[in-house]
């Protein structure tokens, strides 16, 4: 039977919401008045097949499909993988060899892995997908569309808001907007009514005017600037630009010294790291450090790392990027520990899509669908994995093509809802933040406690 979209919606909305209703706003850590989500977007489509690799009997399937690296294949040698030892028993998965900093996080229970999560209109499988019973996300395997859909969690429509922005719509603003991006504008951060603040990374530009002095002519110039922002607003584009400027000037007074790192105690943890991601996470840590000064109690941050579109030379390129990811995540987690907020800050990865298990000409991989993601923080129920690991067989039960492109077994909606619920989003607001959530059987994946 082919379901119409309307039938699908009405049928699925009956499922899944009840557990959520019981946990309305339950998640604030005891005695704390601070909560933060840090969204880390891996632009380009990180190859999750080499992020976490089975080290048990399934490794042979993996190597057979990926190919021997000695012949230009993408298989990581078994002996180089970093075992992800569970609390008891032996490891069944290993981490990419360039991520040793994450092993102690795993072993301390602050890191969890979520398997094969992706954009889904509704639950589906190979048979449903092949028969067209469940529509695929719009423009599957297109970077732009899939980046957007991970950020909106609305794979069946063009959304002008992101789920981070929709959470922020429900939060009050103190001296600065609740959503702060250290990676420029992103759809994730755009709300229906709220607008994100974008700040420079550590070592970046000045978040304020340079040049204007305190002389009378200098102050007259500043006064005129302030006045001009409130004029000439007949054109909607000009109005939007002016609104952005007003927000920037409003925030800059309190934020400038924080962003300049004045008196920061967390910078040392990032010493020696020069990656853009480390400089962004360092800035997030500085803002969290100054949360009392800034009057911030609920914050959402956006940071990113690009370059994951590894169609060629993947072994070298991904290794360099995952090393930056590992070092940055580790330093940032240590910063939250040092600030005493590690249980109040949860960092999680998103990415365009996974990549083909089968290599492409040139030593790379092509665009796919489901992918593995990392969640880090003191509130994470870590040292374990969540979701269902795909069968690593080309054309196998999880592959909707013949190159190893996994049909997701967990949806972004479930992933987002789990994060949002922990953050304190009410059941009522959750329906706005994750409108399609009711289509999926489980609203809380359980990786946060």
């Amino acid at each position, binding site marked *: 039977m082919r379901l119409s*979209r309307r039938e699908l919606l009405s049928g699925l909305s009956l499922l899944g919401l009840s557990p959520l209703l019981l946990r309305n706003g339950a998640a604030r850590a005891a005695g704390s008045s601070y909560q933060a989500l840090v969204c880390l977007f891996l*632009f380009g489509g990180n190859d999750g097949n080499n992020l976490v690799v089975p080290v048990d009997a399934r490794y042979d399937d993996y190597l057979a*499909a990926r*190919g021997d690296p000695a012949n*230009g*294949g993408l298989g990581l040698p078994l002996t180089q993988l970093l075992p992800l030892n569970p609390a008891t028993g032996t490891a069944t998965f290993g981490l990419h060899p360039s991520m040793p900093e994450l092993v102690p996080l795993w072993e301390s229970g602050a890191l969890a892995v979520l398997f094969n999560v992706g954009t889904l209109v509704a639950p589906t499988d190979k048979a449903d997908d092949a028969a067209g019973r469940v529509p695929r996300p*719009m423009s599957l395997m*297109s*970077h*732009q*569309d899939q980046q957007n859909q991970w950020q909106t969690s609305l794979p069946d429509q063009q959304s002008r808001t992101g789920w981070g922005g929709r959470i922020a719509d429900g939060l009050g603003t103190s001296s600065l907007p609740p959503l702060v991006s250290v990676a420029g*504008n992103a*759809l994730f951060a*755009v709300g229906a009514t709220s*607008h*994100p603040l*974008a*700040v*420079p990374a550590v070592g970046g*530009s*000045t*978040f304020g005017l*340079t*040049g204007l002095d305190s002389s009378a*002519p200098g*102050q*007259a*110039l500043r*006064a005129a*600037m302030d*006045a*001009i922002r409130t*004029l*000439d607003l*007949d*054109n*909607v*584009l*000009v*109005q*939007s*630009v*002016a*609104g*952005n*400027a007003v927000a*920037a*000037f409003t925030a800059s007074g309190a934020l400038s010294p924080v962003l300049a790192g004045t008196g920061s105690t967390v910078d040392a943890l990032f010493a020696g790291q020069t990656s853009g991601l480390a400089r962004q996470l360092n800035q997030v840590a500085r803002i969290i450090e100054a949360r009392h000064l800034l009057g911030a109690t609920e914050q959402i941050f956006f940071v990113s790392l*690009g370059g994951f*579109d590894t*169609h*060629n030379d993947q072994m070298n390129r991904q290794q360099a990027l995952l090393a930056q990811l590992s070092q940055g995540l580790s330093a940032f987690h240590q910063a939250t520990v040092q600030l005493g907020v590690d249980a109040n800050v949860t960092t999680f990865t998103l990415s365009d899509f996974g990549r*083909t298990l089968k*290599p*492409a*000409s*040139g030593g*790379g991989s*092509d*665009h796919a669908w489901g992918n593995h993601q990392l969640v880090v923080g003191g509130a994470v129920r870590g040292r374990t994995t969540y979701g269902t690991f795909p069968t690593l067989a080309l054309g196998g039960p999880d592959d909707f093509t013949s190159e190893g492109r996994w049909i997701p077994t967990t949806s972004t909606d479930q992933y987002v809802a789990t994060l949002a619920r922990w953050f304190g989003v009410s059941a009522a607001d959750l329906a706005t933040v994750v409108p399609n959530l009711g289509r999926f059987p489980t609203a809380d994946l359980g990786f946060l406690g």
Partner: protein
Amino acid sequence: MARSRLLGLLSVLALGSWVGCSSSGSSPDAGTGLSLSPDAVRLADQATFGPTVALVQDIQQKGAAPWLDAQLQLLPSDLGTYPVIVDNVNTVCPMGSPPACARDNFTPFPTQTAFFRNAIGGPDQLRQRVAFALSQILVVSGTEVRPNYAVAEYQKVLLRDAFASFRQVLQDVTLSPAMGRYLNMVNNDKPNPALGTNPNENYARELMQLFSIGLVQLNADGSVVVDGGGVPVPTYGQDVVKAMARVFTGWTYPTQPGVAARGHNPEYYIGPMIPVAANHDTGSKQILGGTVLAAGQSADTDLQQALDALFAHPNVGPFIGKQLIQHLVTANPSPAYVARVSATFADDGHGARGNLGAVVRAILLDPEARGDSKTDPGYGRVKDPVLLLTGLARALGVSTDGVYFASTSGALEQSVYQAPSVFSFYPPDYPLPGGGGLLSPASAVLDSASVFTRANAVWKLLYAPPGPDSTVAGATGTQTSLGDLASLGGDAETLARSADALFLHGTMPGAMRSAIADAVNARDPSDVGGRVRAVAYLVLTSPGYQVER
């Protein structure tokens, strides 16, 4: 509409809008300030890297259509000739090399400085502006294609083809070794069962998605074709991506003079890629719209037929035409405007499809582009950061070696020829913040941090233009003479009105003029330069100047 009729109609419109301007009224005048035709200033905003008084006078004297026709004839400014190097920094810049060695050979920095010198001072303004738009649609980025000379060679292709047939653009871009490297068509081999590899899908996918037809079927007016359930109809599926990946197998770098040819030639970026029959997948391929490429064809025949099929697709006109409108005129064109441009793409009036020169002309002479003022509140486009910098430089008499501009464009999130990905600097569907459903692609690079980086760059250019960078050979630095505004005297009202004419084509509200006058009058009357700078700083940092409208 026949081209001649369109021309006639538009020249009447153009004349009508400029009737009020006497030929002498546009000269700098210490009494009343600059008087410029608003529509001529608007055309300079849309078709060039920024108005100057001389340019606006030229447009006024010639008229819009003749001025455009003259621009269409101009040859490209020179982007420079750079050393051919191997992509190995340790070989090219061994220990003991100056630090600038890596910058000058393995980043597009030298080409970027040439871009800015040409954009600020070159005569072929329209060609450069269109090539700049094309460089953001058909993207090759220096982030991955590291040799500077490779980036320069690619951008020369876009400059050369800016007014050519779009079929030629597809051909030249597809066979560019820089593109081959960027999207992995170079040395893309037929399936290799022994290695378990497939042809690389990267170029096949982005050629269709970004460079030619897009993901969903379009009507000629740019609206999306939907099925009975309201769902957009895709232009192709994964099967076509796979078939096209096989089409683009069997090409390698051109053979460098003096180097022996191989199946996979070493990197070399001058001239087009060359076919290698042994690496081409000769099986039959079913591509777009069910077109079948017969088995046994050569790499070149397959490629030509595939590009023909793409070029013939009805999406190309609205897909490329609308993006060019968004880059030149307005981010939210009416469907009728897109349809008029699509019609010119389909037939330039002489039976030719895809004539980019005619398309650009149609975009800029369209009634939705021309006129003294536009009252639709959603009209216009947020300016590229590059256009903020060049607009200032051209209007305020900046002479420069381009060094400050090259580095500052990066700080403003638009490092020319060095986009973060094949999706360029900003996505075409970025929503205008608070804009009630309007799109504003360039708003993606205008965030709260860039409020300050933009204002501080304006300050730097006005108040403290940087001198020569000692690490750059032949550096001359940047000087700001303040151009035509420098000869108007220090009267606040005159300066504000002149800046309004030149930068805002007369849209400045009276209250803004008063605010500017107050700030100017806080300065000593004898400090004419300081007064001009104050006016320029306030206008160039104003929200109104960030929008081309």
